[in-house]
């Protein structure tokens, strides 16, 4: 039941109680009024009797004075009948005091009869003697009426007092009890709502609890509050997400920035180092030639040559790295054998290829970006050749495999080289990382270039390395699956 309905019920009951009280008071006071009217009636009928008794057949009869007195006597029953309402009549009929009303009617008739009699006398159709005897009877009747009227009125009033007052008291008591009961149920439902709010249930079961345990306005209140809270939680969550993404962006920008700064620093440094070294070496060569130390001069010339190769390698790598970012996607069918031929021919120009075996297991043609695939393979193969393990008994080799899977191509480059130290696996794809500077020179950019190309192809690269060798597995999704 709604709280507002409960309150409305309390109000209705209270209004009823007040009305009943007022009605009782009004009815009791009406009884007093009837008594008053009756005593007035008795007074006037007394005067009337007195006057009638003083008359004899010879005395002068004041018709007007008699008429006035009768009209006065007639007035009280008229007032009485006006005051009596339907309810009074009903009650009086029930308790057997209705004869009071009938008496009033009779009294009026008696008065009318008296007036008629006087009128007849005035018309001289009635003798004075007859008039006096008639009036005496009427006076007697008025007195009798008054005497009879008193009893039913007293009975009616006492009935009203006997019944209405206890009824009012009972209803008041009931009203008080009812108000207490209602206020307890209201407090109870508010308490249970509070208990529900305090319990630490999750949101969904909370909504269920509300619809199960709470009703009326409290239910609406809780549901609105819950909605509002949920909204606020949502807004807070959105704000937190925003903050988080701003933080993440800032972080990635900062990282990119510092990577760029590091890249600039490292490239300028690595470009400068071979140049300054070569500059010094040329000075040594001049001195050696002047001093006739030709062997020294030749050794230093080789050193310069090595520095220039290093420089060239670095410049080529930097170009590939920047090219990896700016390449237009160009997908085509790739003949991997052809690609491998080109790579091997390119590598044979440098000394590193020398005694390294290149094994091919190319099972499928590839539909992908040829430039990127070529650079990936070229870098991995040249790494395998550079870092071959000459302490092993078996010949150094690099095995290049290509397989087609339902949604991807898988390229594998495996070697039996020196591997990458265990503690540095995390740095493998970072720029300017070199793990075996003594074995061979390099820019430290090769695997960073490979990673960049794999990322652009939306593929994945994994590495498995040990002292027995290194295997890279590259998985590239087919174009139609992207």
């Amino acid at each position: 039941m709604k709280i507002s309905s409960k309150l409305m019920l309390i109000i209705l009951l209270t209004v009823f109680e007040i009305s009943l009280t007022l009605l009782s008071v009004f009815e009791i006071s009406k009884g007093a009024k009837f008594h008053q009217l009756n005593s007035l009636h008795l007074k006037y009928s007394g005067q009337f009797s007195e006057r009638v008794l003083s008359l004899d057949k010879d005395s002068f009869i004041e018709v007007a004075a008699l008429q006035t007195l009768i009209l006065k006597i007639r007035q009280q029953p008229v007032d009485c009948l006006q005051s009596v309402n339907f309810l009074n009549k009903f009650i009086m009929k029930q308790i057997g005091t209705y004869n009071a009303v009938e008496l009033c009617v009779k009294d009026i008739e008696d008065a009318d009869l008296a007036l008629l009699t006087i009128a007849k006398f005035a018309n001289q159709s009635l003798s004075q003697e007859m008039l006096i005897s008639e009036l005496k009877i009427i006076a007697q009747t008025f007195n009798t009426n008054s005497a009879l009227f008193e009893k039913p009125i007293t009975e009616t009033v006492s009935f009203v007092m006997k019944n209405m007052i206890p009824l009012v008291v009972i209803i008041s008591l009931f009203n008080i009890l009812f108000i207490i009961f209602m206020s307890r149920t209201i407090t109870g439902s508010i308490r249970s709502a509070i208990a529900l709010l305090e319990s630490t249930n999750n949101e969904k079961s909370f909504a269920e609890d509300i619809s199960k345990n709470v009703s009326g306005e409290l239910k609406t209140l809780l549901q609105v509050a819950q909605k509002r809270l949920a909204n606020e939680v949502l807004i807070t969550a959105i704000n937190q997400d925003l903050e988080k993404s701003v933080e993440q962006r800032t972080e990635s920008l900062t990282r990119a920035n510092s990577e760029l700064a590091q890249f600039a620093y490292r490239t300028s440094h690595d470009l400068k180092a071979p140049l300054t070294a070569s500059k010094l070496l040329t000075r040594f060569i001049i001195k050696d030639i002047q001093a006739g130390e030709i062997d020294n001069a030749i050794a230093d010339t080789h050193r310069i040559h090595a520095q220039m190769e290093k420089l060239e390698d670095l410049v080529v790598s930097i170009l590939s790295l920047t090219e990896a970012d700016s390449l237009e996607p160009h997908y085509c069918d790739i003949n991997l054998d052809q690609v491998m031929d080109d790579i091997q021919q390119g590598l044979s120009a440098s000394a590193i290829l020398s005694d390294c075996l290149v094994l091919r297991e190319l099972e499928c043609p590839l539909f992908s970006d040829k430039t990127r695939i070529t650079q990936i393979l070229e870098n991995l193969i040249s790494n395998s050749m550079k870092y071959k393990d000459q302490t092993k008994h078996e010949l150094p080799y690099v095995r290049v495999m290509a397989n087609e899977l339902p949604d991807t191509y898988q390229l594998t480059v495996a070697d039996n080289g020196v591997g990458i130290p265990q503690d540095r696996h995390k740095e493998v794809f970072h720029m300017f990382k070199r793990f075996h500077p003594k074995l061979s020179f390099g820019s430290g950019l090769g695997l960073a270039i490979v990673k960049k190309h794999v990322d652009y192809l939306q593929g994945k690269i994994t590495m498995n390395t040990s002292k027995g060798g290194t295997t890279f597995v590259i998985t590239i999704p087919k174009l139609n699956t992207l």
Partner: protein
Amino acid sequence: MRQINVLIVDDSELDRYILKRQLKELGVESVIEKDDGSTALEFLNDYDKNRALYPNEFPPVIIFLDINMPKVNGFDFLEKFAKMRTRNELASIVVSMYSSSEKKEDKERASEFDFVQGFIVKGELTREFLEQRIQSLR
């Protein structure tokens, strides 16, 4: 003229060669080379053994120390060497940084060690500067 014992710690063979040759031009012949901070620390730690092995070249008076090295880099070396240097026989050794780094923070970090004297940037090393450094040790 007092003989100057030099230890060069650098992973670049070429840079060691260049410095060694520049020192040789200044009459410094007694040069030992190490290719990493780790091998250099071992070398200094085995004091008695190396004293016997290289009676003329050990211990060094000055160490030319590269920063960027694969295993134990220059700063790691400095921290470990600072502890090792409390030993009497090593206390007089000074270190001169010999690096291609031009970073200000590297210079500041190196100068925090009181035994580091000078920060030489590879390629900017002049004969005059090196001569001055050597003279101050003689």
